[in-house]
C-alpha cells in the first residue's frame, strides 16, 4: 500500500489565443485507508486533476509537477505504462453517470468478465462484493436502474483490486438514498484499506464520507484539512462561504462570480469576492504546510 503524492501539479491547455490554467500548483497526499474529498464548484479544475492522474487529458494539455503513486510518476508515465500498470490495477475510476460509462451493446457481465480477465481479478467475487445478483449482470446497461448501474461501476472499478479509487462526481443526479448508499460503500472501502479520492461539488457528501477535504478554487487548493475542521471551522473565506451556502446551514451564496481560468488575477483569485480582502491579497497566498492548511493572507 502506497501513498498518492500529488506535488505541485499544474495543468494548462493551449486554446486558440488563450491558455487555460486549469490546475495550479496543487499538492495533495492521499494515504491508504483515507478518503480525501476534492471540493469546488464546476469549472474549478478538479475534474482536470482527476483526468491528469488517469492520463486522460486531451492532446492540447501540458502538465508540470509530479503525482507519484509508489515508484511511478503518473504525470511522466506514457499512456502505455498507464494502461498496463496503473488504470484498473492501481487506480480504479468510479465515474459520474455509471451507465454511460458502460458500452451499451454489451451486457454488464461481459464487460465485467473482460475486465477481470485482463486484470486478473475475479468477476464473480467483485460482483458479489458490489451487491450484484447474477441476473443483474445479464442486463444491458440501459436496462440497469441507477443503483444497479452504480454497483456495476463499483464492481468494475474494484475488480482489479486497485489500492486507490478516484470517484469523479459520483453523486451528481442521484437520489439522496442512492447517494447515501454509495457513500457508505466508499466508507467500507476506505475502512478496508483503500484510498479514495472523491471529487465532488456536493459539500454535504464530502462531509459525510471524507476524512480530509481539500477545497479548490480557480485551479488552486485554498484549504485542506480534516473534514469537519474544513467545514465547521473553515480558515479560508471561500470554504466558509461554501459551507454557509449549504441549505442546512445559512443557505447564503458567496457574492460574485469565479474568475475565468484564462484570465486569473495575479494575486489571490478569491480576493475580488472576498469581504476580508485587503491590499495584501494582491500577492498570491501560499498554501501553508499544516495538517489543516490554508492559502490565505487573512484566514478566518
Amino acid at each position: 500500500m502506497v501513498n498518492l503524492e500529488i506535488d505541485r501539479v499544474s495543468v494548462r491547455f493551449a486554446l486558440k489565443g488563450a491558455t487555460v490554467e486549469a490546475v495550479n500548483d496543487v499538492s495533495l497526499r492521499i494515504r491508504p485507508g483515507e478518503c480525501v474529498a476534492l471540493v469546488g464548484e464546476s469549472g474549478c479544475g478538479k475534474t482536470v486533476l482527476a483526468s491528469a492522474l488517469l492520463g486522460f487529458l486531451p492532446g492540447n494539455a501540458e502538465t508540470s509537477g509530479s503525482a507519484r503513486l509508489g515508484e511511478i510518476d503518473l504525470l511522466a508515465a506514457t499512456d502505455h505504462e498507464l494502461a498496463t500498470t496503473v488504470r484498473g490495477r492501481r487506480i480504479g475510476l468510479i465515474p459520474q453517470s455509471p451507465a454511460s460509462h458502460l458500452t451499451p451493446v454489451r451486457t454488464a457481465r461481459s464487460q465485467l468478465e473482460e475486465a477481470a480477465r485482463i486484470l486478473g481479478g475475479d468477476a464473480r467475487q467483485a460482483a458479489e462484493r458490489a451487491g450484484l445478483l447474477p441476473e443483474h449482470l445479464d442486463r444491458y446497461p440501459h436496462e440497469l436502474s441507477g443503483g444497479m448501474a452504480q454497483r456495476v461501476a463499483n464492481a468494475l472499478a474494484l475488480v482489479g483490486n486497485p489500492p486507490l479509487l478516484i470517484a469523479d462526481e459520483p453523486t451528481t443526479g442521484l437520489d439522496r438514498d442512492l447517494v447515501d448508499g454509495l457513500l457508505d460503500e466508499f466508507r467500507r472501502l476506505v475502512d478496508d484499506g483503500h484510498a479514495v479520492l472523491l471529487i465532488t461539488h456536493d459539500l454535504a457528501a464530502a462531509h459525510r464520507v471524507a476524512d480530509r477535504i481539500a477545497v479548490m478554487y480557480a485551479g488552486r487548493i485554498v484549504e485542506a484539512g480534516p473534514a469537519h475542521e474544513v467545514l465547521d471551522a473553515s480558515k479560508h473565506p471561500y470554504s466558509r462561504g461554501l459551507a454557509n451556502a449549504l441549505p442546512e446551514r445559512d443557505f447564503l451564496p458567496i457574492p460574485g462570480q469565479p474568475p475565468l481560468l484564462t484570465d486569473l488575477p495575479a494575486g489571490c483569485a478569491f480576493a475580488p469576492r472576498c469581504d476580508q480582502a485587503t491590499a495584501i491579497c494582491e500577492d498570491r497566498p501560499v498554501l501553508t504546510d499544516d495538517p489543516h492548511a490554508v492559502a490565505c493572507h487573512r484566514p478566518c
Partner: protein
Amino acid sequence: MTRGQAIGRLALRRLAFAVPVLLVVSFALFVLAKASPFDPIERYFGVRIIGASPERVAQLRANWGVDEPVVSQYWAWLRHAVTGDLGDSLSLQQPVSAVIGDRLGWTVLLVSVGFTLALVLGLLLGTLAAWRQGSWLDRSITGGCYALEAAPVFWVGLAVLYVFALQLRWLPGGGVTTGSEPVSAGGVAAHLVLPVAVLAISQAPWFVLFVRQNLLESFTQDHVIGARARGLPDHLVVSGHALRTSLLPFLTLLGARLPELITGALLVETVFSWPGIARATVEAALNVDFALLGALTVMATGVVLVGNLLADVLYALADPRVALDG
C-alpha cells in the same frame, strides 16, 4: 412480447411497406417510360428502319400493343408478374425471367465480392486511420479516400483497365472468360479481380471515412473512457468497445448504401463488359423495354428494401437499446 418477436414484427411491417413501394415504383416507371421519346419499334428495326415501309411499322406497333394505354399495359404486366411470368423483353427478345436468370448470378458475384471487399477495406483502413490519427498513414489513407471519392468510378475503372489490362497485361480486361474457354473458377476469379477491385475501391472510401470518423468520435465518449479507465489494453478498447458502438450506425447505413452500390456496379459492369444485370438495365432503360425495365427496377428496389430491412434487423439485434415500435 419477446425481442425476437418484436424483430419479427418489425420485419413484417417493413415487408408490408415494401409492397406499395414496389407498386408505386413500378407504375411510376411505366408511366415515365411511356413518356420517353425512345421508340421500342425503332430500336427493334435498328438500321433497317430506313427503307421499312410505314405500313409495316404501324402493323408491328399493333402486333406489340405498344400503343395501348399505359394503364392497361401496366395491368397486363402486373397480372402476369404476380404469377411469376415477367413477360418478354422486347429489346432482348427473351423472357424477362431468362434475361434476369442469365445475368443475376454474375452481378451477385461481382456485387457481393466487391461489397465484402469494400467493407473489409473500410473497416481495416478506417480503424487503422483512426488508430494512427494524424500520422502520415492516416493522412495518406484519408487523402487517398477523398481523392477516390472525387474520382468518377468509370474514370478509375478506365485507368485501372489501361494500366493493368492494357499496359502491364497482368489481368484480363473484361468479360468473365477468356475467349472460348469454358467458365471455370480460376478464369472467373482472374476476370473478377479488376472489376471487383474498382467497385471496392470506389465504395471503400466512404466506409473508411465513416469508420474513422465514428471511431474518433467514440474515443471521446464515456464508455470508451470507462473501458480505458478499467485498464483494458488499447486493442481491446477499440475492438470490444469503440468499434462495437461506432459501427452501429454503420449497419443502417449499409442498407442506405445499396443504391450507391448498384449504381457503382452499373458503371463498373459497363466499363468491364461484365455480363451482369447492370448492362441489361442500361439496355432496358435506353430501349424503354417496359417488361425488362419494370422487372429490373422493381427488383433493384426490392433488393434495396430488403437490404434496408436486413440492416434494421441487424441493428436491432446488435443494439439492445433500439426501440422496435417506431
